[in-house]
């Protein structure tokens, strides 16, 4: 088992819900894709290439002021459960988590973390720099990832093309290499059936949406990741500005939808959120999907002020720690599904009891 206490805040500082609009926008992530010049991209590189990338990047990271006090995990040395744990924390992609197995322990893939900044090495691109922030904080997240990028670029030869910009393994990332995304909770739009319209609208304005775990993941618990689809032809601040404008609009729609629900179906909504709370508080067996949906209901209740004595931080924490690898890491080794459901229910109960006992 890795010792995540080595990681500042366990890489989960964004859970504290301190950022703007943290009730609806859980977190903001900005990542930059970069590759080293003169070395084949990870997918085509040899083991020696990957080793060299890791060595070069490691040196650059150590020299970056932002990296002080940070940690590094070599994916090849992690146990499968720990890889999953980092993935559940959104710190590494599925690709990176699977890289070690696919390359038989010679992936030379790594994850670096320092505060809210970090990077994946030998993912699809040599470098994926990323910053997480609580709430809706695009500018702040970009300025931090930009600082890391500048620090690394001072010592690393980066693949850059005068016309096409930063070169990436997949042409969908070329140019700025920038993907900014917000994790947003939209139960109001789902309940009022407006969501399909909103999601379709996103597509028309060059944005895209994904599920809780990013690319290829399903939408659970009404959590959506909204991000820019194009990366080339617009400057970084334009891309961020555009995404920011649309996200603010989606938040406004969501708030309107919630008001409509409160106005037109107050009893249904109140009943729904308290039922969700009651199930989480007293159930003896909870599947992951059910937990996500109930957390969504309770979160809506907290947002509407219907459930007063529950913090967004607690809701965020439950979202992360009820995932399978997290339950295992809490000593709740549960190989069988039924046991894991029971363990999940016990964990949720414990947290909610604790919160309820706390004087308001």
């Amino acid at each position, binding site marked *: 088992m890795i010792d995540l206490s080595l990681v500042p805040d366990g890489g989960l500082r964004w859970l504290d819900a301190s950022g703007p609009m943290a009730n609806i926008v859980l977190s903001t992530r900005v990542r930059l894709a970069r*590759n080293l*010049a*003169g*070395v*084949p*991209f990870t*997918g*085509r590189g040899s083991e020696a290439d990957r080793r060299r990338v890791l060595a070069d990047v490691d040196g650059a990271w150590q020299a970056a002021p932002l990296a002080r006090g940070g940690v590094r995990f070599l994916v090849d040395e992690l146990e499968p459960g720990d890889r999953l744990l980092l993935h559940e924390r959104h710190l590494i992609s599925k690709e990176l988590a699977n890289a070690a197995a696919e390359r038989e322990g010679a992936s030379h893939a790594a994850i670096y973390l320092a505060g809210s900044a970090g990077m994946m090495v030998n993912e*699809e691109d040599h470098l994926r720099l990323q910053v997480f922030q609580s709430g809706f904080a695009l500018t702040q997240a970009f300025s931090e990832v*930009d600082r890391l990028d*500048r620090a690394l*670029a*001072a*010592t*690393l*030869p*980066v*693949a*850059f*093309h*005068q*016309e*096409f*910009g*930063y*070169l990436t*393994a*997949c*042409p*969908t990332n*070329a*140019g*700025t290499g*920038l993907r900014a995304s917000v994790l947003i909770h939209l139960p109001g739009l*789902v*309940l*009022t*059936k407006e969501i*399909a*319209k909103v*999601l*379709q609208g996103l*597509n028309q304005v*060059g944005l*895209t*949406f994904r599920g809780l775990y990013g690319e290829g993941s*399903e*939408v659970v618990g009404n959590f959506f990741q909204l991000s820019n689809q*194009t*990366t*080339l*032809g*617009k*400057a*970084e601040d334009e*891309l961020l500005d555009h995404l920011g404008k649309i996200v603010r609009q989606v938040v406004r729609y969501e708030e309107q939808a919630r008001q409509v629900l409160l106005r037109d*179906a107050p009893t*249904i909504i109140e009943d*729904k959120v308290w039922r969700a709370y009651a199930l989480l508080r007293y159930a003896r067996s909870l599947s992951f999907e059910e937990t996500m949906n109930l957390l969504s209901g309770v979160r809506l209740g907290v947002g509407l002020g219907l459930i007063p004595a529950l913090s967004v931080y607690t809701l965020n924490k439950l979202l992360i720690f009820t995932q399978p690898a997290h339950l295992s890491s809490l000593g709740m080794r549960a190989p069988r599904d039924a046991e894991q459901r029971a363990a999940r229910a016990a964990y949720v109960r414990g947290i909610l009891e604790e919160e309820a006992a706390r004087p308001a």
Partner: protein
Amino acid sequence: MLCDNCGERPAAIHLTQIENNNVVTMHLCEQCAAAKGVETGASVAKFPLGDFLASLGKTAGGEAAEDAKGLACPACGATLQDFRQTGRLGCAECYTTFEPHLRDLLRRLHGSAQHVGKRHAGPAGEAPAAAPAAGAPAPAGPGVVELREQLRRAVEAENFELAAELRDRLKVLE
């Protein structure tokens, strides 16, 4: 979980609605959802790269694509065929090797192939070629004469999207 409607295919779309004051959740497969007119992410947000790759050999520059079939990147050995299969390029040099195809692809993916954002300020002693100010035409870009010629060809080929872009670029240059 199987689709509530056909009971055959796995449910991919989970639709929660309020009907007559009851919250109803339906689990549908993509086909049934589409048949019911449910606009889902799956139906609207299909990743376009596959289509683009498939059309690489057919559209503008199609003849060149045929010519380039045997072309391999001198740096990493990747071919256009490899790219079509994996959707991933082999190395940075591939962008130069397959430049005409990629310019076309990038334009269709992003609406533009001209990077205007941050430029890499290389490590000391390895300064990149003089970077133009944002918005200014790239020094390596085509000149007015060449753009006019491209515009003429684009109009001839009835590729009006490209023509519009070329016209805008000409406007900036002139």
